[in-house]
């Protein structure tokens, strides 16, 4: 009789989407979700302790088995590994607006960016990072957009609440450095951004 923890390992390996605690409970006939969480926790701990080639990551409302970041150089050399196209700056800004304000309509996005976001939204829709969430009850009933589970997976987030709060007067880090000669006030304000960007990959 296989051990439950090994079953969870196989399930994580075989699943192409993040595996939810709920599902693990169902498949293993566990008493409750907490038992499923405990099992995964045990497996995560085992992987972390061994530090081999693989890791388990909590993302998109579930867990995923992934390769360890340190092994990226070799995986890049594996010719079959796909190359990923990074998002452009407009795409990232638009995605940020959707992620933080969802559900949000195009007129609202356009207003924040000051430019037309149609093409960018199409691109994000095509990549399935966002989806149409419905229509806004406003004249013209524009579509409203929200982020998808693929978005969470792509950015390694457990849920949209994982996005860092970015508040207050902001100083863009690279420009802050430039301005460092000035007065101390600008210096003090560069923290929120820098802190956000340096967050660990999410254990």
């Amino acid at each position, binding site marked *: 009789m296989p051990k439950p923890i090994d079953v969870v390992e196989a399930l994580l*390996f*075989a*699943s*192409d989407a993040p595996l939810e605690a709920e599902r693990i409970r169902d498949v293993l006939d566990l008493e409750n979700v907490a038992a499923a969480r405990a099992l995964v926790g045990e497996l995560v701990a085992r992987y972390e302790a061994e530090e081999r080639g693989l*890791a388990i*990551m909590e993302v998109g409302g579930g867990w*995923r*088995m*992934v*390769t360890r*970041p340190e092994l*990226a150089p070799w995986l890049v050399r594996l010719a079959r*590994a796909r190359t*990923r196209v*990074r*998002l452009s*700056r*407009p795409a*990232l*800004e638009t*995605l*940020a*607006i959707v*992620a933080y304000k969802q559900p949000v*309509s*195009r*007129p609202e996005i*356009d207003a*924040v*960016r*000051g*430019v*037309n976001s*149609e093409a960018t939204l199409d691109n994000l829709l095509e990549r399935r990072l966002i989806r149409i969430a419905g229509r*806004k009850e*406003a*004249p*013209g*009933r*524009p*579509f409203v957009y929200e982020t998808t589970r693929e978005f969470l997976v*792509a*950015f*390694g987030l457990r849920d949209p609440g994982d*996005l860092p709060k*970015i*508040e207050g*007067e*902001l100083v*863009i*880090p690279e*420009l802050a450095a430039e*301005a460092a000669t*000035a007065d101390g006030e*600008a210096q003090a304000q560069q923290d929120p*951004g820098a802190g*956000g*960007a340096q*967050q660990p*990959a999410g254990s």
Partner: protein
Amino acid sequence: MTDTELRLRVGTFEGPFDLLLHLCRTNEIDLAALPVRPITDQYLAHLEAMEFRDLEMAGAYLVMAATLIYLKSKLLVPPDESEEQLDDEGLLLKQELEDRLREYARVKMEGAWLAAREAEMALIWGRPGAALPSVEDLPLEDLSVDWLARMLSKLIEEQRRNRPREIEPNPPSVLERMTEILSVLRDTWSLLFSSLTGGERKRSEIVVTLLAVLELVRQGRIKTQQTELFGEIVIERQAARADGEAPSAQAD
């Protein structure tokens, strides 16, 4: 200063807010206390040196320029070089501009955070597709072809009862769009132009809508005005009285 100018001209910006933000950063301007005169002058100077990807992008920058110039025109006389005073309307506009600028600055940071995150995630690989047992061996749960058959029968039955439906031609004509706008305006006093096209993805739709609006303005059945800052057009029902005063689009 010349050094700064040179650096500015090489930079690429994602839109008018991006440029404005850059000007504020390089000049260490507090976003909560925007000096209208210098920022307008710099913005315009920079605009002259810029090359645009397309007309639409150029338009976005020009709308901001118009806003800034308008704001500058609101500065009270006599102008004191060191102090800027605005009337109430000017203050409101400035406040909104500052708010939007701050919001854009935040979005930019959020975008930067996402970019950093994306870079981290690029270092890890998942499985290429599911390794679950091929689904064809799986017992059916609660799907049944009978449902499909029943659905189709129902549709066929409906078709028998009804005559074939007329399909709405695509895209709607200018006339249809005009009717649509007027019918919306029966229930509400005003609406935004962007909201008329908000749900539409096709450029032709926007053109049709614009033509419809222009025609309705020409006929004196609606009026348009730009009360919003960045070029949003507000469409309003034209008051019933038919006076000679020509309705006008007041966009500075």
